[in-house]
């Protein structure tokens, strides 16, 4: 073996900015995700509904084309309900995407004991979690609020500044509604995968939390004759938040404020669980 007899000479050049190092994890993890044909296919599928919405926006702004089809101009209305439906469909797809992509981000590192390798660098636990969650954050943004905002801009360009000014709040609702959904999904997926350390089980567990949570909520409400069971149903809580953000009329059992608090609480618990597991070393008793 070549042994270089040299004096100690550490790297003395400039380092990249601390804040940007989490992007190394993002780059590698994202590339790894798209090695899966299934996930790539699912990602493409996520754009079918926004493309359909694009066609609807075009039709809604083409009165002559609708007339040719024998349809009235108000047949398609682009308003808060239109974007609420877009949000609902993309939200479900985002959930499916998370169930397949999320658990594989952290569990392999934990199962293989790779965390000491990460943390024996100038790299913190918070940066690690940020790097991994940014993969989901950006991926889910690409299928939720980004197409929503693009569709809003296209509609605004067709309908004029008056429509855009009156409906600008929808952009805020799209972004805020998506971000809170992305946050709860990412945190849940990563916390579960960190605790079970097994990718497939973590994915199944995420599905179980959402579906069994809804069933459990119904059971609690029916048995105890209360509405508080809805706090166990994350899907219901998100529906309350989105309904409120998109100013939709509703007869939901809990208030938007309560739903916000519950979701933030879920996020905090997931983050706490995650930080308990993401350590360089774990003592197994």
């Amino acid at each position, binding site marked *: 073996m070549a042994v270089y007899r040299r004096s100690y000479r550490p790297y003395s050049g400039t380092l990249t900015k601390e804040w940007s190092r989490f992007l190394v994890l993002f780059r590698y993890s994202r590339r*790894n995700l798209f090695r899966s044909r299934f996930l790539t296919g699912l990602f493409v599928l996520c754009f079918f509904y926004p493309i359909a919405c694009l066609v609807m926006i075009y039709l809604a702004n083409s009165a002559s084309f609708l007339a040719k089809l024998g349809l009235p101009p108000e047949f398609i209305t682009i308003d808060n309900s239109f974007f609420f439906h877009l949000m609902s469909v993309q939200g479900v797809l985002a959930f499916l995407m998370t169930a397949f992509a999320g658990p594989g981000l952290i569990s392999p590192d934990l199962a293989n004991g790779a965390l000491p390798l990460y943390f024996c660098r*100038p790299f913190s636990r918070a940066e690690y979690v940020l790097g991994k969650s940014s993969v989901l954050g950006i991926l889910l943004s690409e299928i939720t609020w980004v197409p929503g905002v693009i569709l809003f801009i296209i509609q605004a360009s067709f309908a004029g500044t008056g429509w855009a000014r009156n409906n600008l709040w929808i952009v805020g609702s799209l972004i805020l509604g998506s971000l809170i959904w992305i946050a709860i999904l990412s945190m849940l997926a990563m916390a579960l995968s960190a605790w079970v350390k097994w990718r497939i089980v973590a994915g199944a567990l995420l599905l179980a939390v959402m579906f069994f949570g809804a069933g459990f909520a119904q059971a609690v409400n029916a048995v105890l004759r209360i509405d508080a069971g809805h706090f166990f149903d994350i899907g219901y809580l998100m529906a309350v938040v989105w309904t409120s953000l998109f100013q939709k009329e509703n007869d939901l059992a809990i208030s938007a404020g309560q739903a916000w608090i519950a979701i933030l609480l879920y996020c905090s618990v997931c983050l706490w669980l995650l930080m308990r597991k993401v350590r360089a070393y774990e003592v197994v008793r």
Partner: protein
Amino acid sequence: MNDRIIFEDVSKFYGEILGVNRVNLSIPPGITSLVGPNGSGKTTLMNLMTGLVKPSRGRIQVLGIKTDDPERLFKIVGYSTQFDAFPRGLTGFQFIYSYLSLSGIPTQEAERTAWEAIQRVNLVDAASRKIGAYSKGMRQRIRLAQALAHNPKVMVLDEPLNGLDPLARAEMIALFRASAAAGSYVIISSHILHEVDVISDQVILLSNGYVVAEGQIQTVRNEIQEHPTQILIRCDRPRELAAKLFESEYMIEASIHKDDRGVLLKTKDADRFYLALNQLALNGIQIESIAPADDDVLSVYEYLIGNEEVVR
């Protein structure tokens, strides 16, 4: 002292489980080996040194840098962990390169430095293959490469010789020696005592979370008073020599070596015995060699810790 790795009254408890207790160490440059049975606290000591776990009590400084300052600490520290832990799908080069990027080294420099480290561990031919296809020895080498890629002043290597064939071990030992000769601090944990003996400048013996001995192996041996020093004298007439040697007041016990070509003796004061040996009239007995028989790590380890866990 900014030129040493210092542990001041350091204890680490994992809940009720003892990691290490009341450790006081001052580690100088060179090759230092941590020796002890499983669960004695070797890896905990390394994790404390690299800031991966925080001490429950006490203070640690690595060349004057506190271990809770990773931005400064990991410029001078490289750590090779005990476990095979590689992100899926990476080639050897990508593995080194990605961790250099995490250390904040810019793209071009990281690429150059990664190749240099791969050359040092002699893995150039396999660098573009996926780590998943590496042999155990190759994985050990690539792990070592990531620890030394940024030319750290302090290298902390957990069981670095495990899984290596004799040739590769010799190469790695040469690498450690070269680093130590260049002024680096090479901290090694190992179960293989005869290798530790060969490569170490100093040893730290651990048992049940306590440091039981620290320093150069001969110095440690001399301080173990309850076990007399053993000396092997090779000669042509061992029986006559043994009879003569009993004239010395420092002699405790003598036995003829099993090959009948030497005397194995025990003395309570080796230095004085050597002086007295010169004055003994040996009546023409041909002495071939005189060498201490138990000032190696294995003997010291057995005297201090017991031989239950010794791997020979």
